[in-house]
């Protein structure tokens, strides 16, 4: 029997290339779309619908494996757009300039690599990829094909930084000035203004349920191992399962850690050690944890404290010569005056469309994005194995640890690979 994805589509529904009729009256503030860059969005659930709103580009296509999501999202745009059930059709749509990836993380790697190979520019949701190996391959594919890649977390160049009460820029300036000394320890916890969202945990037992008619579950799973359908695995709650994400760590990790990587000037390297303090994790369902501690070769540390764990009034950044707390409270005498002598951090290319136009790397691109995703993924692996891991920051793999390295590159379910 010959089953190509196109014949498969017919059985999945007659949605492919369905065109929405434009509304007869265009709303106020309507602009002629001719000279705008265009985008196609893969995954139009809750997160994907936000991508419709990102300014400066025009939606021309959307894709989802859930027909209901696709219909709902399509009703939000007034333009005539293409709707796809298979992301590969969206990627090869000639009218799409930028591919937005807003699916669950287990798809990011494949989609980003495919989009890069198709010469598209990419706007990818966090976490960049679910495994370290996928991240590496996306990075290579993007560079080989000359794409411009943007990861969708923005705190390193935009304010405010969650509950920290300050944007990242002044912190970067303070660290860069050397006033705090070196090495530094950054604590990301409830006490410093960050919530690890422990409600993103999975259930240890799921009864098999019938797959809803509107959902192509096989395609939703994609490269992930086949497991019987249960509504808790998919939409809105998928983050609680290791096959697709890593709970609150996966959801918020790159948001919280990427700016730290920037602040510590670690955009091109990785920690050499990760330690965890957590209950044993279920092989399928993500659980909670107490702490995850990363150490760099130079002694810098990033400490994550889950839930209410840890010590109140902990500095966000602790250094040998001073500390900075939430709301930019600094214990260095006359720090404001001292800091004014130092230059601001270098301006960052934070206009994605300008970067596409001038083909310059975006501030948060495939390289630093890969490295912060790797921090998240190192933590997830250490949690799943419940032990300390040592990492070779140059080879980008765990040292003498075949088991941990299995998690660096997990083989994908056919027909998916990168």
């Amino acid at each position, binding site marked *: 029997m010959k089953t190509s994805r196109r014949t498969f589509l017919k059985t999945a529904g007659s949605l492919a290339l369905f065109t929405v009729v434009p509304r007869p009256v265009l709303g106020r503030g309507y602009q002629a779309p001719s000279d705008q860059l265009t985008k196609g969005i893969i995954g139009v659930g809750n997160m994907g619908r936000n991508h419709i709103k990102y300014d400066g580009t025009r939606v021309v296509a959307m894709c989802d494996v859930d027909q209901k999501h696709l219909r709902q999202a399509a009703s939000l745009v007034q333009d005539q757009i293409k709707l796809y059930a298979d992301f590969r059709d969206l990627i090869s749509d000639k009218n799409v300039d930028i591919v937005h990836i807003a699916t669950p993380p287990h798809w990011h790697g494949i989609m980003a690599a495919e989009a890069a190979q198709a010469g598209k520019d990419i706007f990818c949701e966090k976490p960049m990829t679910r495994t370290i190996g996928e991240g590496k391959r996306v990075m290579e594919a993007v560079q080989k094909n000359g794409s411009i890649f943007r990861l969708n977390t923005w705190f390193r160049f935009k304010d405010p930084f969650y509950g920290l009460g300050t944007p990242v820029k002044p912190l970067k300036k303070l660290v860069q000035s050397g006033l705090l000394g070196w090495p530094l320890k950054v604590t990301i916890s409830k006490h410093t203004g960050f919530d690890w969202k422990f409600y993103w945990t999975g259930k240890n037992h799921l009864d098999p349920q019938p797959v809803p008619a509107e959902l192509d579950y096989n395609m939703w799973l994609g490269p992930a191992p086949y497991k019987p359908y249960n509504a808790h695995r998919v939409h809105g709650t998928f983050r609680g399962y290791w096959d697709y994400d890593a709970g609150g760590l996966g959801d918020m990790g790159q948001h919280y850690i990427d700016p730290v990587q920037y602040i510590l000037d670690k955009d091109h390297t990785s920690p050499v050690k990760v330690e965890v303090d957590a209950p044993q994790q279920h092989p399928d369902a993500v659980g909670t944890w107490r702490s995850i501690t990363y150490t760099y070769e130079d002694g810098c540390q990033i400490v994550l404290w889950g839930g209410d764990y840890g010590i109140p009034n902990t500095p966000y950044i602790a250094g040998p010569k001073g500390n900075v707390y939430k709301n930019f409270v600094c214990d260095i005498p006359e720090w404001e005056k001292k800091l004014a002598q130092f230059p601001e951090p270098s301006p960052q290319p934070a206009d994605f469309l300008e970067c596409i136009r001038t083909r310059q790397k975006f501030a948060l691109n495939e390289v630093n994005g890969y490295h912060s995703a790797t921090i998240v993924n190192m933590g997830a692996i250490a949690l799943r194995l419940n032990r300390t891991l040592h990492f070779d920051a140059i080879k980008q793999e765990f040292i003498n640890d075949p088991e941990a390295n*299995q998690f660096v590159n997990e083989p994908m379910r056919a027909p998916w690979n990168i």
Partner: protein
Amino acid sequence: MLSKKNLSLILALLFFISGVEAQTPQNRTTSTIIADALAQLPAEKQNVYNQTMESLVVTGEDGLNALINMMDASGKKSNETVEYAISGWTNFVANKPADRTIAVAAYTKALQQPLDIRIKQFLIRQLELIGDDTNVEILASFLNNIQLASPAAQALANINSQSAVLALIESLKNTEDEQLSIVLVNAVGQTENVSAENVLLNILAESPSEELCNLTCMALSKVGTMHSVQPLKSLAAQSGFSIHTNKATTAYIDLLFKLIPSHPVEIRKEAQQLQKLTAKSNQNNVRIASTEILMQLPDINKDKLLKTALKDQNPAYVSHVLNFYSGYTTQTGIDLVIKATKKTKSDLMRTSLLYWLGQTRTEKAAPVIIQYLHDQHADVQKAAVRSLANLDPELSLHPLIGLLTHTDAAVLENAYQTLAAFDSDVSTALISNYPDFSNEGKAVALKLLGLRKASSSYHLVYTEMMSAADTKVQQQAAVTLKDVISADKLTQLFDLVEQENSNYAADIQTAVNQALSFESVEKQLEIITGRMSKANKAYLYYPSLANTGSTSALAIIMDGYNQSGSNAQAAFNALLSMKTFDAVYPLLDIARAGKDKAEISKAVDALINLIVSSTHTGIVKANYLQEVMLLAQTGNQKKTILNQLANTDSFQALLFTERFLNDKALREVAAQAGMKIALNNPQYAGGVTTKILTRIEQVLDNPDAEYQRQAIQKYFNDNKETNGFVSIFNGKDLTGWRGLVGTPITRAAMPKKKLEEAQIKADQAAAESWVVEEDGVLLFTGKGNNLCTEKQYDDFEMWVDWKLLPGKEPDAGIYLRGTPQVQIWDTARVQVGAQVGSGGLYNNRFNESKPIKVADQKVGEWNTFYIKMVGDRVTVYLNGALVTDNIILENYWDRTQPIFPTEQIELQAHGSKVMYRNIFIKEIPRPEPFQLSKQEEKEGFKILFDGGNMYQWTGNTTDYITEDGCMVIYPSRSFGGNLYTKEEFDDFIFRFQFQLTPGANNGLGIRTPMEGDAAYVGMELQILDNGAPIYKNLNDYQYHGSVYGIIPAKRGALKPVGEWNYQEVIAKGDHIKITLNGHVIVDGNIRDAVKNGTPDGKEHPGLFNKKGHIGFLGHGSIVKFKEIRIKRL
């Protein structure tokens, strides 16, 4: 010498300390080990996890098989605990070769059994993680089963040994099935093993389906050699090297990349050809990739490649070639780029070239970069600016500063950002070139001077603010003033303030505040009031006063507020910016009395800020925020208040949120707030909290609502044991309350009928004295008697809010178990000692009666008590501060009795108006009190401690407390301390139980006075953890049970630390006999023992006391006691 018994005891103790490890696994069967391990899983801590897995792994293949057999095949029952065990096992042995082999063998064997498909998938996943060559056969056997082929193929790909790859290849050769082929091709591709090339090429030759063809191409790109190049190339050519049609082109390119190191010559040919082919077509990214291949080749002239690329007119292509070239940059290359920069007609191309030149940091590029610094095209101009900033500051600073002559906003923004990040001083150059700048440029220069806090520019900034021709420049100068100010400029600025005609009053005030902040608060006040006394218009100084944050400044401002005209208005504005919490009171007064909605609204904003940013406890903040909520004017203010209440962790705030759950506009915010408080505070669980959370569950409406409902359910589950707090005042009438009759003692003595009559009368009186007001407030009018609960309470926790109303001698209190009282009074009443604050046990004579600290809010404002009463002990928190710490409440009505075990709670009437609200009680189940056995009762024993009150005891009742039916000493509360019986004893039999902590030291004093060291002024019978290493060098008369310094006790009868010991002491004349856990450890005569002098050589003047107290002698360790009884002989 150690007896045999002692040895076993020590061993037992050792095992006890080292926990799980010490239990020898040999003695347990596999099934017990598994049962024990499963009971530990999922392990909470890493060390427990490791220990559990270590014990499991010992059971070997049998154990693993047993676990596998425990899995339920139906998929309906949860396998979670077994899954924890098996996956834990896999992870634990992964890097331990011997154990790993055993596990792998067990999985292999299990997979040969007829198991459910889901269980097999789970086991295959284990082999994917730890499998090896020995599993190939079993995994290969699944490759023809479509449900198992996928995980099995993935496992084989991960094992990736030669035989694993061969197994995949063989299956691929033999299968006709399309789906299986897809699975296998995908897996062999992921092995990246060259042996698969032939079979893949064969598939490609047989014109496979589109999907299989694509997968085969991708697999070949990973496993292929030169043999695959042509087949892939011809497929790619068929699609015109388009990446959209199929995967051949992508695969072809990937393969070329892969073969660069081994076949550079051949690849060069391929890549050059591909580059040429795609130069004409529109396959830009294929061309980019082919150029990168060429760049990576070792023996190729990169400069030449660059030169060719620079002729291209596609900026995207050129910019990527430049990227690839960066690693091989030569001077020739730089020259080529400089030339191209000048020559190109494309602005985008020039942009790319300029950015690249900037990255090289070559000074030679400076002239060309500077040439485009003022370019018309925004991208080019920006690229020039950014690139220039990378060069030597000496070269770049002046050209960059020259940008400030522009008027274009984008140019100036680039200049600003670049100069802000400029890594050396910019202020000198900015000041000296200032006159040349455009007005817009001047504004940027001023901003930069402010950023660098360049106080040398003060004069310039001041002058520009006063007299710049352009308003925007003036404005920016005004804003900058605060950043360049120093203390010595205050006079000049105050003069400006007094001129009152400036457009920049607010900015000048900010600068004044900044200048003042260099001085102490006292000095600031001195400066300001000094100026004020000479000034006509005092109100001009109110903002400065407000900024000091001092209370005396508040008084001056309030004086102004009570005047009229400009003073009043300015005072009100200053009040809004006050930083001291005391401003809350006038602001509340103004808002409560105010008629002008705008004014109330401003006051409300200021109040919210003051309350939230204060250092008060969450409870105090919550009480004030509730007040402000009543005054809030806008929906946003209400939402802000509810959001802030969420952070207070206050029980009262949780109750308050319930009121808004039916308000459409506010209910989501209220629900979030209530939920946050409840979930953060399990001590509030049950009772009213359950009711509120149940309502919140219905209301929640946000994307995370489903998760939040689950969190609420979890909270219910986690706390289902607790009763929770329930309201005892319904806010509408006096249901559940009654008037006061007599005292607990007189009531008990009254005949039933007489009591009933008196009660009716008292209830009628109470109904007149106690009035239920609006908003669920209970008011005592100031005349009448106490209001009492109908219900009697023994142990409980209680919340109650109270408010004293201004008037004569404000005073009130809460009676616990019918007994006065937790004190409430106006701290201003110093003549009666009220300055100590509320919350003390006022009528205590022997135990502490004063609160630890003053935590009262002003008369007229709400306060909150949390009261806990267990046994005879009372703990009180006032407004979140601990004021009474587990103190014994004495029986006021009869001081010869302990406190009543159960009685009513009363709100005291003390002749002044007082309000109550939110009265909630959580009853605490009381442990069964200790009772004498029939035998002991008959023999005449008397209980000294039954687990409830410590009434028979005196001395250090602070460190010795009651807890869960035990008497415990917590020496951390204050070091050591002795507890004595109130009575004295001569000859007696004393029985009790005690529990030691590691290294614990205490002592039982007998026939001792309350002063002095009982070991010498009386007799001390040692209580000691003999086994602790720190005690190994003691003298034998110092170990547990010894008559200290006089008669040594036998050792070995103590139970392990943490277990209860039962001890009996018989003191009869000079004869002391001590029995510990059934072993007589002392049986001797003290007079005989000191015949030849005291064994410790010390004076024991009290050794032969006829009688004295019995006491527990604290030595800095936690020790528990219970079931203490005595019989006089």
